């Protein structure tokens, strides 16, 4: 083989390498654009909660679970994921309204998604998992546990009831319940 073919090969390789660089650069650009200008980021939340005591006091006590509208109008839904159920099993949220979902686990790792939305987070014991979202479609959505948490994992399924904003009527204490 001659040096000429070696040069040709090198040239072709460099051309391809440049194309590869462009492909990677474009993908990265789209991701950075989505993250910076549209605030599409993964649900990081280094906020601690002791899995052994979360039910004793504070926001994850039984009377505070489910959806609650704060004095500032902020809608927050608090859910405990536990072997093998969600507490509560059904939550109601208003459509077209910013909603903050907060999850905590007293036992093992769980994970949730809400079908038809981009709501998705792991629930790791020791942390409060938090997702900000706006539900656009009304109706009952499925919220399953999507991480293996023991033999009863398949039964862990909750409902997110999305209602039109005018039908979302929290009680005097700010809590809204399913049904």
């Amino acid at each position: 083989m001659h040096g000429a073919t070696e040069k040709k090969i090198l040239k072709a390789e460099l051309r391809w390498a440049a194309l590869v660089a462009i492909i990677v650069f474009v993908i990265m650009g789209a991701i950075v654009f989505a993250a910076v200008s549209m605030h599409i980021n993964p649900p990081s939340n280094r906020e601690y909660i002791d899995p052994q005591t979360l039910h004793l006091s504070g926001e994850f006590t039984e009377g505070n679970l489910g959806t609650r509208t704060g004095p500032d109008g902020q809608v927050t839904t608090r859910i405990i994921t536990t072997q093998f159920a969600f507490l509560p099993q059904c939550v109601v949220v208003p459509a077209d309204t910013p909603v903050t979902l907060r999850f905590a686990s007293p036992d093992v790792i769980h994970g949730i998604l809400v079908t038809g939305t981009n709501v998705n987070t792991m629930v790791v014991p020791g942390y409060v998992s938090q997702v900000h979202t706006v539900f656009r479609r009304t109706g009952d959505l499925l919220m399953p546990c999507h991480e293996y948490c023991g033999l009863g994992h398949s039964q862990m399924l909750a409902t997110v009831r999305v209602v039109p904003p005018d039908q979302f009527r929290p009680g005097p204490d700010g809590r809204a319940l399913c049904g």
Partner: protein
Amino acid sequence: MASVAFDPAPAPAPARAERSTLGVGRLTLAHLWVAIAAFAVACVLGVWQMWARSPLEAPAHSAANYFRAVTFHGVSMAYVLTTFFIMGFGYFVAETALKRPLPAGRLAWAAFWLALAGVLMAALSILSGSASVLYTFYPPMTATVWFYIGLVLVVIGSWIWSGIMIAAMMGWKRAHPGEAVPLAMFGTVANAVMWLWTTLGVATELLFQVIPAALGWVDTIDVGLSRTLFSWTLHAIVYFWLFPSYIAFYTLAPRAAGGRLYSDTMGRLTFILFLLYSLPVGLHHLFMDPEHSTGFKFIQMVLTALVSVPTLLTIFTIAASLEIAGRMRGGTGLFGWIRALPWDRPMVLATGLAFVMLFFGGGGGLINMSYGMNAMVHNTSWVTAHFHLIFGGTVVIMYFAIAYAIWPTLTGRVFASARPLRLQLWLWFIGMMVMTLPWHYTGLQGQWRRVAAFDYSDPMIAAWGPWVLLSLAGGVILLVSALLFVWNLFTLHRARAPRGVATFDYAAAVHPPGRIPRALNGFAMWNVFVAILMAAAYGYPIAQFFIDPPPQAVVHRTVAG
């Protein structure tokens, strides 16, 4: 030459052909048959799992059986098939590429028996129902300690293998000063070095967190830390599995196609980039986790994007190598060389099919790694589809092709016909497509992972039914292919199979490497780079658990005692 084995009229064999002139013949066969046995059982269980999740009623269907089966499937495919295949193929490459006997042959056998004892320990733990924690463990749940000890023995066996691979290369370099290490061995040692780095994470998790918890020495466990340590291993392990396929792309496929490797340097560069960039990217498995900041997730996302580079380079180099072959065989025009390729040869066919599956699987992977977009697909069937295409597709179909290429050398017998081999590869490809394409769709619909059954009385889940049945049909095709694979290899162990001359050669490069830079002929410098990258990518994400310790989770024993 790989294709000799598939010549319809094999050359007349010597009157009394030796069974195998290869020193590592029995060692390689022992490893590969363990790998294949685990693979076959895992395929049977895989089909049953899909049946259980479908609208059809499956026999013996219970949650306990399902998660037992999933654990067995995952451990067999991810740990046993892969590790044993890679070790066996590595020994084979060390002897045939370096053309000298394997150093420490007895130690290699000791590693084999150690790892096999570990496999049996883990398998019995799973079958008895004492280890239904899946192959990714999920602390704070713990299984019987024998499960973890068994897996640790497999890892120790693979560490011994890594040491032997490195020693084999160093010995060859001492005997051939200044010469380029043959590419197949360079790739094998790159994998061994990467594997030593890779297993640090899971070994630390098992030895310092999970095993003490399983033994009852501790009652609580830092789950964020254990997830982080596992993520250290979780992505690079996929490249550990992938390496033999890439070694076959570079050093077997061009020759099987009747051509030459376009660029030896590109092969070395690819293997080095895998070593560098498959490790500091594991946090992309934890994008949806709370315990890591978006900053480190972003950094590792960028590094993940870079790991697509060696694959894109490989696609170019292998396509160019095949083009050389196609044109040498008379192919003309922009695409005419594709038609001119010898698609009847299993290695060429498998390479083509592997690339198609890599296109779909890699495309899905780019979406998974996309930081924000991951929320759309995390822990849905989309991800299951992605890794079945990459691992079950690209990786395993090349394992088939490698086995078909080396079995004649190992047994001293040749395949009477390549037809059942091609049929098996086509069935695998079709089955994988039919199984995974519906999974992508149902995953986008929100179908979640790791459940023993779906409630088809729910109208939304009922709509997935036909797609689930379609993917089940794909699974059945895969099972047929898997059994045919076992049969094809088995035929070469029968006395009636035609005998053949069993030499083995690798593809030559268009420009065979003469003297090459030291950086492209060893790994000392690259290890320093890996250490720097890992310190940057994982230093703080691990240190944070000690700087500001989070509350621990209570250990949940899934078995009594």
